[in-house]
């Protein structure tokens, strides 16, 4: 029997990322004595970025493989490229206050978390998914706590860890029940078994338990309590990473579990025709998230906290897409990808501001348009995109999603969700405008000088804003990529 080394070539990109983590650690160790904090930060950040690029390049060499523990379909490859790009941008965040001396560890953990993301989206095996989820989560807990000088950071990490541990337990419980019911841990096999046998009540327990765990990762209400504290307390690049990369991967894996594993057990969330299954569950999560997120965001004074509540609301909108079944997949992916770009950009602007203000309260944004016109314009683009104003990508994302959801059930059965979502997004305009009002209509405090962000930071933020605009005006670019990848992958 010859050993099968195909897995090695399949895992190459993940291996590249994981090995780079150790390279970064070693590099930082070598530089520790002789170099300043800034130099170490720059070189490690650059290395991390290079590792992401290298992993992207190796992705093209991976053969398509779609079974078992590890799959490499064109779709998962596409998402991996996007995740790597998001991680690379997070590594290059403009952070003036070096919040930690453990620079090597910081970037190594970031890379390991990225490896966790990549593994998370490439498996159809529940155990593998769980292991990847834990790899990701453990890295993120530590990263959130890295700002040791800040109490908020420790509090955030502790909350994140406690809630995360709890929800992981729920997920594991759900998975074990599923295994007990079907004797399988592969999603495809589970689905086949579920179809052939009748549904026992315990299946619904398993369903709820599994979903609770993932709802935590999505920051969907009522499992969102960690999000505001983590967004506010964690180091800004980490908050951005949690809000963007982790969000995209979590949505992808939830879509995979639900559509592949529980495909036939959706029930119905159509108005007046509720049937038990995951659809009413997701609809409830979506409604609670949209309402709670948007209403709580109205009262926020700190922009990072506000973004956290807005993220909860956005998770609610995105969940609606899943109710459209497989047809909802392109809208869902379009939505979360453009959302990730937008929120990454917003956090980058916040990071730049924090370099001079130390905080990111609404009032710290006063008169930003006079202190940094380009940055302000980019923030305008990001906020309006989050609010869903055309011609930005956030608008098309929502529009596409709502159209798919409205057409999903016969007789406009899901229109009630669309109505709620549209109403919620009308509310959201209020708080996004609060930020923009400070930036454009208020005058800067007299002590505030001009903000001088570095050229590279401005370039990166402008590129993100440009992408948000381009994908809004020509969504076909990303849509055709997605539909091409979807058609050539068995989802």
């Amino acid at each position, binding site marked *: 029997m010859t050993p099968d080394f195909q897995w090695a070539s399949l895992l190459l990109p993940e291996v590249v990322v994981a090995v780079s983590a150790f390279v970064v650690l070693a590099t930082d160790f070598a530089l520790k004595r002789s170099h300043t904090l800034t130099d170490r930060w720059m070189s490690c950040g650059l290395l991390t970025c290079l590792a992401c690029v290298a992993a992207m390049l190796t992705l093209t060499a991976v053969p398509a493989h779609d079974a078992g523990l590890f799959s490499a379909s064109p779709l998962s490859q596409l998402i991996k490229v996007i995740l790597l790009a998001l991680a690379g941008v997070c590594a290059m965040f403009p952070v003036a206050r070096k919040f930690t001396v453990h620079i090597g560890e910081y970037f190594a953990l970031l890379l390991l978390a990225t490896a966790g993301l990549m593994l998370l989206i490439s498996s159809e095996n529940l155990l593998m998914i769980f292991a990847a989820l834990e790899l990701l989560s453990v890295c993120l807990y530590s990263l959130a706590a890295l700002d040791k000088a800040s109490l908020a950071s420790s509090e955030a990490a502790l909350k994140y860890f406690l809630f995360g541990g709890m929800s992981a337990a729920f997920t594991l419980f759900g998975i074990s029940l599923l295994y007990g019911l079907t004797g399988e841990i592969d999603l495809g096999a589970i689905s086949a078994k579920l179809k052939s046998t009748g549904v026992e009540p315990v299946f619904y327990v398993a369903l709820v338990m599994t979903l609770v765990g993932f709802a935590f990762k999505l920051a969907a209400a009522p499992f969102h309590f960690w999000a505001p504290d983590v967004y506010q307390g964690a180091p800004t690049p980490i908050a951005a990473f949690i809000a963007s990369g982790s969000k995209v991967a979590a949505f992808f894996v939830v879509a995979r579990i639900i559509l592949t594993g529980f495909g036939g057990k959706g029930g119905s969330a159509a108005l007046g025709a509720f049937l038990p299954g995951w659809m009413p569950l997701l609809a409830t999560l979506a409604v609670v998230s949209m309402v709670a997120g948007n209403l709580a965001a109205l009262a926020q004074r700190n922009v990072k906290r506000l973004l956290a509540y807005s993220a909860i609301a956005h998770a609610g909108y995105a969940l609606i897409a899943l109710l459209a079944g497989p047809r909802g997949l392109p809208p869902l992916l379009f939505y979360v990808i453009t959302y990730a770009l937008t929120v990454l950009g917003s956090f980058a602007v916040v990071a730049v501001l924090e370099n001079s203000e130390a905080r990111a309260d609404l009032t710290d944004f006063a008169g930003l348009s006079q202190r940094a016109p380009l940055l302000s314009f980019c923030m305008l683009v990001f906020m309006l995109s989050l609010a869903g104003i055309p011609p930005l990508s956030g608008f098309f994302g929502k529009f596409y999603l709502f159209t798919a959801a409205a057409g999903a059930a016969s007789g406009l059965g899901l229109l009630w969700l*669309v109505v709620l979502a549209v109403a919620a997004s009308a509310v959201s305009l209020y708080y996004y405008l609060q930020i923009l*009002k400070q930036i454009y209509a208020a005058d800067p405090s007299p002590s505030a000088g001009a903000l001088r962000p570095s050229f590279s930071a401005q370039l990166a933020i402008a590129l993100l804003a440009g992408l948000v605009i381009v994908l809004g005006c020509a969504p076909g670019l990303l849509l055709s990529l997605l539909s091409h990848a979807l058609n050539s992958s068995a989802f």
Partner: protein
Amino acid sequence: MIAWTIYVSFLGSALLMLWPSSSPRPARLIALLTGLAGLALALAGAVEFEHASATGKLWEIADISWIPQLGIHYHLAADGISVTLVLLTGLAAVCGILFSWNIENRTKEFFALYLGLIGAIYGVFLSFDLFLLFVFYELAIIPKYFLIARWGSTRREYGAMKLVLYSFIGSAMVLIGLIAAYVVAGGQTFDLPTLAQFPFPAAFQKWAFLLVFVGFAVLAGLWPFHTWAPTGHVAAPTAASMLLAGVVMKLGAYGALRVGMTLFPIGLQTWRKEIALLAVIGIVYGASVALVQRDFKFVIGYSSVSHMGFVLLGLMTLTQVGLSGAILQMFSHGIIAGLLFAVVGRMVYDRAHSRDLTELQGLNLNRTLPFAAATFAIAGAASMGLPGFSGFIAEMQVLVGAWQAFPLLTIFAGIGILIGVAYTWRALLKAFYRDDATTAPLPAPHLAPITFAERTGACVLLGTSLLIGLYPKLLLDLITPALNSPLMQPLWKGVTT
């Protein structure tokens, strides 16, 4: 060629944003040139349109596949109604720039936003794909917010936020209606002429019509959703109030007609009487409230609500004469309301720094600002609906149409006109001509003379109103064929009067 009105405005806006110097003079010139180019293109387009499409067929401008996955097209076209409103937009844009000549604070940004707003408005009037129309419609919301919140006056942040939220909630209703219509029609296309042919089920039409019509009509100041209008108009800087009252409110009426009424004729039949009732309440209520305002600008703000009531009433008559009156009223009110806001906001408030009618009473403005007094007198006469001005033709047509459809309501609308005479007269006397001759006039403060730009703008607007009043055929030749076009045919089917 008429599509270039959109592109030119957006290009002008982008140019201003990127313009390196922050001195106001070049910014004004760029804005004025852009505005004039837009007006010239609109006029040229109107002439071209008359030659191209005498039969009332839709005049196709561009139809390119935009987002094939959803069947969305970049579809620009025009009929007589679009062309009329594009002309109005061009005129209002140029005059608004003339009346904002005195803006010194961040002039560049002001005009960049202003031109962006204009471009979006042109876009709405020329779009015949519902997605595209909606994109332009929402695009027009954000510049309004910044124009008011940054350059406005009384309670500007409140007024701006209120206006934006009302617009956004209105457009959210429209969005739901559009998505539902798209799904019900098979999820293939957003093309307006195609969807207008689709027989939507009657039960669906009943609520979809209400959603879309009311969603648009929020922006047209339909009572009781009008409250954004007075506060927004008052808070806005002069040019923005001119645009708001002059053009933006027409966006709402246009959308209600073009989308709501064309797509859902059965729904229209169902709700016609109720909406006509709301329109008449708006007419009488707006006029009555205008009668007791102390703030000069609020008088004009509420008068806009009243006059827009005539547009909505005209639409609901579902008679040729009523509808053409409604569209004429859109044009006419756009011009007259713009002028009234210019007199109040620019000529009086920017100089006397007060809009309180009792305070103005002591200032003897008819001597210190004779031009403003005369302009307001003439514009007021036009607003009252004096024969010879455009408002007369328009409101008369609406009343004739309404008489056929809703005789009782028409009487109340007539009363609204009478109150209109009263509040205009009251404002005119209080602001410019002291009605109390017994006390000695206060010494007149020195006020800056009316500038050339203001005179030009006022004369253009008055001249247009007079021209249309004396020779309405100019516009009616555009409007009437459009009303008989195939696109509008479903409206006339099954009308019971």
